[in-house]
């Protein structure tokens, strides 16, 4: 049994000479919200399409619940609910009629599934309004209703808040959070909006030009980005021992052999430097730093702006 609901190994999609997704190793743990963050054309939608078997990878493998997707679509895809790109429904039908069609195809056993799904996203059940008359926000809600109607274990949502007004975005956020916390769903959500992902996701993958630059939990990213004193020393292991023994300080992290971050800003930094030097350590830099998540993502992706 795999520890991941979704796992990709070396997933690559190439169109002509251009790699849309390159050597992607994605890991999504059960019961987590995974935010795939990347700018336009980064490869988010292509990745999601490959996870759903809508696009055939050029190379690499997709594993869902530890089972390779190719050849097992009939058993794996019914366990997934998805929203990829713009919502697609029959314009001549109402929301209920549209969902009824997909419920019939999916063989949804619950008679109230359609009503429940529509209520969940705040759309009326027996509404006479046709899909063609829906606003973008209503279409998006209906697409979410379709994704959750058959009570899937995994949700793959490509920019689900697109087209929603600010209140709708907040509602959608709390709705997705509830799905994860109360119903134990695993959710993969993509967005180009950092604030949206940082408010929602447990784990974050940063995708840029088809390459997964970083995959980390939000907690670790936030820990790394909070205000701290940065020491550049010749030996971080010895510096850490000095902090613990002489200053009873444990709120620090070792970045590498030479960089140590101290998160308690009330400590006497000058005395610490003196202690380091007295113990034979070279101190080349001491500064107070604060790196926001946005700064971090800018740095990781090469410095271009984000929403």
């Amino acid at each position, binding site marked *: 049994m795999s520890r991941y609901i979704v796992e990709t190994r070396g997933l690559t999609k190439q169109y002509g000479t251009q790699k849309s997704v390159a050597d992607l190793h994605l890991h999504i743990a059960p019961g987590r919200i995974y935010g795939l963050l990347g700018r336009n054309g980064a490869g988010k939608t292509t990745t999601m399409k490959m996870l759903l*078997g809508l696009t055939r990878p050029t190379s690499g493998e997709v594993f869902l619940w530890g089972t390779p997707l190719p050849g097992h679509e009939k058993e794996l895809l*019914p366990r997934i609910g998805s929203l990829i790109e*713009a919502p*697609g429904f029959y314009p*001549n039908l109402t929301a209920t009629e549209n969902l009824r069609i997909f419920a019939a*195809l999916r063989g949804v056993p619950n008679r109230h599934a359609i009503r429940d799904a529509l209520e969940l996203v705040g759309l009326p059940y027996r509404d006479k309004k046709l899909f063609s008359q829906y606003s973008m926000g209503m279409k998006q809600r209906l697409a979410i209703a379709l994704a959750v109607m058959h009570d899937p274990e995994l949700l793959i949502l490509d*920019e689900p808040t697109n087209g929603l007004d600010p209140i709708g975005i907040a509602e959608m956020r709390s709705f997705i959070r509830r799905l994860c916390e109360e119903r134990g769903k695993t959710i993969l959500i993509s967005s180009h909006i950092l604030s949206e992902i940082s408010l929602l996701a447990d784990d974050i993958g940063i995708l840029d030009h088809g390459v997964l630059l970083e995959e980390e939990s939000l907690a670790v990213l936030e820990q790394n980005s909070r205000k701290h004193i940065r020491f550049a020393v010749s030996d971080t292991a010895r510096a850490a021992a000095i902090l613990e023994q002489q200053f009873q300080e444990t709120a620090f992290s070792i970045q590498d052999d030479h960089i140590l971050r101290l998160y308690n800003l009330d400590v006497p930094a000058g005395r610490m430097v003196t202690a380091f030097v007295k113990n034979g350590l070279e101190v080349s830099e001491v500064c107070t730093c604060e790196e926001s998540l946005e700064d971090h993502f800018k740095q990781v992706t090469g410095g271009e702006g*984000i*929403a």
Partner: protein
Amino acid sequence: MHVVLAELGKLRRYGMVKAGCLVTILAALYGFAPALARDGVQKTFPLVMNNLLESNCIYFFPAMIVLIGGCMARREYTDNTLKNLQTVPLSLRRLLLGKLAVLFFMTVGFSVLSFLLGTALCFALGLPDAALPALAEWLARIVAGNLLVFVEVLPLTLLASLFVEGVYACTAAAFVYGFFASMEAAMLNYYPAKAVLILVDPRCGVGYDFVHYSPASAVLTLLAVLLGSAVLFALVHPGQGLNKVKSPKKATRAKGW
């Protein structure tokens, strides 16, 4: 079965169903028009229904069936619903089979409508020989004729469904294909569109002593078409890459940093 039920559900308020009804009405009027001519010929119910049968099989139903079949497949691309169906998962072949089954039922429905319209017009004009056996016979002939047209154009319907960008080209081809059935020649024994008329039209070849149509050849021709369609369906993969049709009204989503 689920696919057929779902396809039936998609027909509610569907424009192509309305278009089909309109074409059926036009076919009925076209078939009925000669009944109003003062040409010295005694107008009877069988004569008008024969006209109706011919107008259906030659001019209207071949193109209509291909158009509706192609558009039913095309809408999955234009309405952007194909991805939803594929993640059910539902294979494109099963989807097309479901659509063909529904198209078959629609052909029956339009045939019955055609018969009812023709009959109503005959009754309105008070034409003779509209007894119950004649009504039953012509209902059977019209439904059978149009179902054989369904078989006759099946390769074109399949092509229009498999390569949805070619729907209108296939529809035009179907019209020309049906139109040639209005001609008379011995070699047309093996022409599928003519084969339909040979089997259901009692006036087919009447007055043309130089041609002798064989119902056996007609049956063989239509069976060959059916077999060819099955081979086409089995061999040609409904390639997504070949179908680049997009909805002209597709909403643009604001994306990007």
